[in-house]
């Protein structure tokens, strides 16, 4: 199945994915919260079962990793994309002060993650005998099995769930999910398909080379960062605010537009294409560019040096079917009645 077909399947029904790329750590001990509060840029107040998307920044305030921090009982889980788990563990341990008890369990060898994304992802979990998923709020978790943690999250703009399971049970659970998804026309989504969906729905993707090592100010990720607390990179961010850095802006262009292409306004260079994908909803491409802040708005007509026209637009790029699919009101039988994201 092509990447485009995988994306269409995910957008229209549901797709399963191997998320073994996500680093898994559990932080325990009396000082676990304090250590993470010093390291992570978000305000760290979480109820049991609640998660929060945040980041790991370097000392220059640039994003090194995409992190979801989840509270379960007294422990804090870190689900990390973009940085090896052993490096994250070292940062966490380094955030503990002398005499503080902080234990970091690196779980990549013993556990793995499975992804379920799509407007009927909740229906697949329900069919897998996990009815608790139907009413699970976004960024909440529960245990459908004693050894399986389910977190409602996702970077596709559709209903999404991550199942964290023992690695030696992953194949069996994956088979059970595939069986449960057969009646829902479930497919599989590769890393490329998930990345395409992230671009379409304007989600930050730590694996995207075009947006690596930029600050939250440039990436429009200020919502993941506190302005009130000190953390690794906070001083650099304060200094960066005064410089009015470029900002990531949505764009649509012609087929063949490449990342790193300079963009011109009235002949003057004002930015560079950062990310680009062939669009599935219309001819041409969609993606993003870093533009000088004063020009980082939708509605502009820019050009490449070759004279090709590129337009800035307001993302996200499509109307997700999940906006119209309700676990309380619909079943899979209603799928055909819901708006199709692609013509």
């Amino acid at each position, binding site marked *: 199945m092509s990447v485009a077909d995988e994306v269409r399947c995910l957008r229209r029904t549901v797709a399963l994915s191997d998320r073994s790329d996500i680093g898994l750590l559990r932080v325990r001990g009396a000082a676990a919260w304090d250590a993470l509060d010093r390291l992570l840029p978000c305000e760290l107040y979480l109820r049991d079962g609640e998660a929060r*998307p945040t980041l790991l920044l370097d000392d220059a305030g640039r994003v090194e990793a995409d992190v979801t921090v989840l509270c379960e009982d007294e422990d804090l889980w870190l689900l990390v994309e973009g940085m090896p788990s052993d490096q994250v563990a070292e940062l966490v341990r380094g955030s503990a002060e002398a005499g503080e008890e902080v234990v970091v369990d690196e779980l990549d060898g013993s556990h793995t993650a499975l992804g379920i994304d799509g407007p009927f992802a909740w229906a697949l979990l329900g069919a897998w005998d996990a009815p608790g998923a139907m009413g699970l709020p*976004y960024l909440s978790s529960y245990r459908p099995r004693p050894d399986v943690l389910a977190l409602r999250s996702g970077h596709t703009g559709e209903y999404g769930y991550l199942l964290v399971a023992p690695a030696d049970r992953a194949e069996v659970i994956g088979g059970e999910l595939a069986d449960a998804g057969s009646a829902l026309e479930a497919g599989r989504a590769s890393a490329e398909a998930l990345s395409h969906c992230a671009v379409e729905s304007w989600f930050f993707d730590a694996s995207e080379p075009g947006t690596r090592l930029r600050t939250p100010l440039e990436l429009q990720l*200020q919502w993941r960062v506190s*302005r009130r607390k000190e953390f690794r990179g906070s001083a650099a961010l304060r200094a960066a605010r005064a410089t009015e850095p470029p900002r990531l802006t949505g764009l649509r262009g012609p087929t063949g537009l490449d990342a790193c292409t300079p963009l011109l306004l009235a002949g003057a260079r004002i930015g560079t294409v950062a990310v680009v994908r062939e669009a599935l909803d219309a001819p041409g491409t969609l993606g993003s560019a870093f533009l000088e802040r004063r020009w980082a*708005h939708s509605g502009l007509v820019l050009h490449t040096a070759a004279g090709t026209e590129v337009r800035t637009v307001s993302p*996200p790029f499509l109307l997700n079917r999940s906006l119209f699919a309700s676990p309380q009101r619909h079943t899979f039988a209603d799928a055909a009645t819901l708006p199709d994201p692609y013509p």
Partner: protein
Amino acid sequence: MLDELRRLLIDALHLDREPDELDPDTALFGTGLSLDSIDALELVVALEEALGRRLVARGEAVPAVLRTLNTLADRVLEER
């Protein structure tokens, strides 16, 4: 327009954020600012009162319109 919408959003929903922290393409619902359905109704009422026009058609899904500050601005400009 975006600055006006930022101030309306902060005032209507008592957001603990400075205006320049509200990036124009940050999601308002689900991820991003994580507004809920009650916030959505309060926001629509406040916006329509302040701007003096209907922004969301009867039967239209509010989150589909109020996805980000930019899409909200696009809708306001369409209605002008």
